[in-house]
């Protein structure tokens, strides 16, 4: 079954050329994760990323004596996973399902091969992931600023 309509309907791939959607479709699969399960664990091999269609997951990190801390939650329209692009290909956080998740999983190795063969596709994907990374970085900076910790309003 083709996943192209779902790929086309996802915010992350808005406006992507049909021929690229067809290429990505060749690397994509439908996935479902139950509440309380982990979509991925810190340190594991990261050869997939997820376009979330429904549900929510928490990106968590844990430390001794502190327990798990949620650094961000993701939901429909979001993308989980940059690690497939980065050479180490290891998940940096745990991805715990808060509400049952339906997502399209995209095989990173498969997609990297297609990007090697078609640098325009590679550039287009890199552009989109770079935009996503910048948005996440800005959000992280705001969180670090602890803006609510100071008097105002």
């Amino acid at each position, binding site marked *: 079954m083709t996943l192209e309509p779902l790929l086309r309907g996802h915010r992350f791939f808005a406006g992507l050329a049909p021929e690229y959607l067809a290429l990505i479709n060749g690397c994509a699969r439908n996935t479902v994760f139950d509440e309380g399960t982990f979509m991925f664990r810190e340190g594991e091999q990261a050869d997939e990323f997820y376009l979330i269609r429904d549900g929510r997951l928490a990106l968590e990190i844990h430390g001794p004596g502190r327990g798990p801390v949620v650094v961000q939650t993701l939901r429909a329209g*979001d993308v989980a996973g940059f690690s497939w692009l980065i050479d180490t290909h290891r998940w940096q956080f745990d991805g715990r399902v808060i509400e049952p998740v339906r997502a399209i999983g995209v095989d990173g190795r498969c997609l990297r091969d297609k990007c090697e063969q078609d640098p325009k596709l590679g550039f287009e994907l890199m552009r989109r992931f770079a935009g996503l990374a910048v948005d996440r970085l800005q959000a992280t900076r705001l969180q670090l600023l602890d803006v609510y910790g100071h008097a*105002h309003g």
Partner: protein
Amino acid sequence: MRTAEAASWIATAPWRVERVRRESHDVVTLALVPPEPFTFEPGQFSMLYLAGVGEVPISISGTSEPDGLVLHTIRDVGAVTHALCTLIPGQHVGVRGPYGTAWPVAAARGGDLVVVAGGIGLPPLRPAIRAALAERDKFGHIVLLYGARTPADLLFTDELTAWRGRFDLTVEVTVDAADSQWRGNVGVVPDLIARAGPFDPGLTTVFTVGPEIMMRFAVRALLGSGVAPERIYLSMERNMQCAAALCGHCQFGPFLICRDGPVLSYQRLARWLGMREV
């Protein structure tokens, strides 16, 4: 009757504290009995005064039903606010006001309304939300996006729960940090804007209050989504002391926030926001 028009540089009248509600570990709402009939517009503020301690501007966070007490929600951040937060029923506080400009709720009719609140920014927005909900049929989509530091810092949780239960109001809440027991969103308020669901940017009016950095990022996201700058309203905070446009302490660019604000359109503020010398 005390009204916005009548309030100026006048002596504080003692108002009795009828009830005290602890909203969070450092935020308290005082339910006050005015000595005479009192009206205000959503977004306005009062100057609350304690003899021998000092005076501070505090947003009016609504009235209680059915007794019509006037609510002021205060965060304990300094000597005066700490003293206000430790008042108990039966004690009195001096009140001047109401002061300042109001949210243009009536002007937002006929379109969608997006309310973006951060931290202690929710109290001055609550009267506007209540006013819009009181005439729900006059608005399209109404969306509340609210962020706080942690789940324990969320204010008005009973009312938030009631609002979330309505089918004609979209409420999204996020916190900057949480442990794994929290089942809600973790992230910053501006990130909610792109995910805020159905509102038509071309017909949307926005009211926002929060830390100024948060508001600047929220405005960028709103402009990016197509909301017109003249339809984005911010409530500004500066060092208000007289609240009567006399002392100049609250000057922000060409504005005296106590007189020209606190509610101002982004179109008027844009030149000055983010300018560190102002």
